[in-house]
């Protein structure tokens, strides 16, 4: 073989090597990409999760409603033929791949299973003789609250404005720490009984106050032994305007916690039309800071407690709060204070 032939030969070998490496690289990239998108796994997870949840609702000896909202808005759900079927609501080309998992029905109970496209939340509800699955809508009506005796003429109420000091909390149109601090200052004036707070409510700016850890807050709750704890916070979701009221579902005050949360929720619904208000039962020890302030483990006396996340810092609920850009001043009063939280607490102690 001549010198030129030798070079051509080596060039061919090199090209062959590069083609091999290229094929290998592309195959692996394709595989990694398919894992990264995880659509199939997510659909499998959702179908299994929903099928087992339906089995759980059937297993309940009493009537029950469960709300499911775990990242489901991109998918369509069908429940025909005893299968929880999940697929993408929109696909770029072709038909979506359907993934399903079976569940067991109770043939003694009627079924109303709707096809649900791109829901924010699915409600699975079992009543006496019917199991229904439908898209859950935002609650627009007030509900009956637990009828438990809670009258007290001189309760001790502890306010807990979240964050403060160097910790501003979420920041957007307003600063969370300053917003909830201003609300706490005004609530102090209008609440019944004796009002105490986890931090002093005499400063104009909460940034001037010392930092306060959850341990410090829990220490103050233990020291003052209040009858009620109201922890005030804001969220940061860009698009949603919602209120979440967290309660400790695992302490001795569960029924009273539910009553207080229910009264506050009803007031929010009455005052802010179309507002999405939810009560979430949590075990605060598992949620970590700052919701751990509801934790009463080891305390000799557990107060009734709610942790309220009011709207979000980009579009605060009350227009008067928005106008003040995070500094209400003592003269500014919002609906949240006068028409929601304070009356709900008064009603709780009536």
């Amino acid at each position: 073989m001549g010198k030129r032939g030798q070079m051509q030969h080596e060039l061919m070998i090199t090209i062959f090597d590069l083609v091999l490496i290229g094929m290998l690289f592309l195959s692996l990239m394709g595989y990694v990409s398919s894992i990264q998108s995880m659509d199939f796994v997510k659909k499998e997870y959702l179908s299994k999760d929903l099928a087992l949840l339906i089995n759980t609702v059937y297993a309940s000896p009493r009537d029950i409603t469960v709300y499911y909202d775990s990242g489901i808005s991109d998918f369509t759900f069908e429940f025909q033929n005893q299968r929880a079927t999940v697929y993408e609501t929109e696909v770029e080309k072709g038909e979506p791949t359907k993934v399903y998992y079976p569940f067991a029905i109770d043939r003694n109970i009627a079924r109303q299973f709707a096809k649900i496209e791109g829901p924010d939340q699915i409600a699975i509800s079992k009543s006496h003789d019917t199991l229904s699955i439908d898209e859950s809508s935002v609650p627009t009506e007030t509900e009956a609250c637990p009828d438990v005796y809670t009258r007290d003429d001189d309760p001790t109420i502890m306010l807990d404005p979240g964050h403060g000091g160097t910790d501003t909390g979420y920041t957007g149109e307003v600063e969370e720490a300053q917003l909830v601090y201003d609300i706490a200052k005004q609530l102090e004036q209008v609440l019944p009984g004796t009002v105490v707070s986890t931090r002093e409510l005499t400063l104009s700016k909460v940034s001037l106050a010392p930092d306060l850890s959850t341990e410090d807050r829990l220490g103050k709750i233990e020291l003052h032994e209040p009858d009620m704890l109201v922890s005030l916070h804001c969220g940061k979701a860009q698009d949603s305007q919602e209120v979440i009221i967290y309660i400790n579902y695992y302490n001795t005050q569960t029924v009273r916690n539910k009553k207080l949360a229910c009264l506050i929720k009803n007031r929010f619904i009455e005052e802010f039309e179309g507002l999405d208000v939810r009560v979430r039962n949590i075990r605060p020890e598992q949620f970590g800071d700052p919701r751990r302030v509801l934790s009463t483990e080891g305390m000799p006396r557990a107060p009734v407690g709610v942790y309220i996340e009011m709207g979000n810092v980009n579009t605060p609920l009350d227009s008067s709060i928005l106008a003040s850009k995070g500094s209400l001043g003592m003269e500014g009063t919002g609906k949240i204070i006068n028409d929601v939280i304070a009356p709900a607490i008064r009603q709780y102690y009536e």
Partner: protein
Amino acid sequence: MNKRGDVSQVEDVVGFLWKILIMIVVFVVVFLLIRSHAKLEVDTFEAEADLFAFRMLYAKGALSYYDAEIDRVYPGVIEIEGFGSEEYMDSLENAIYYLDNSHIAAEISIVTEDGVDFGPIYFNEDYYRRWLPIARTFGTGPGAVRMKEKSFYVLLKDRRNVDKERLAYLQPTDREYDELMQKVGGEKHYGDTKTVPARMDMRILIPNS
């Protein structure tokens, strides 16, 4: 081409084969490494077996006693009269009904403190008998069957001795019940024959999908 050229061509072919072999090995190793770190399956066996057992025990129309007059289920109180009869099994199948039978099967038996056995009864018996030998092997992957055994402490109730007022008190623990009975001057729980403490054993088989 001379002899030297032939040798060179053989060397090239051997070199190609080596390269392809090494490429395949690298590909497989990288593929397995990625796969071992990516979770592509959701294993619900444990949850599903537990859920099936609890549904058997708690759901209306399943194993626990149901009082239709007041629409109340007494979880953990098993009505032993007719246990395993055709009507009983029909009722059970209606309460937990899978369209596709090849999904779950179970054996349920009850033994009292005195060693009296009831059952076993079977949920989806044909598949149970077919799957049990497979479940006892160590096979994994598609086609294999996984097995879970659970035990519950229950109370057996005889329909002939129904006493709803007292049955309501059976929801607390036995000790609480005895104390309560002593307070109201009633009978001791363990001296009568209305309810009998027992253990319910369940063996649940679920094939891998």
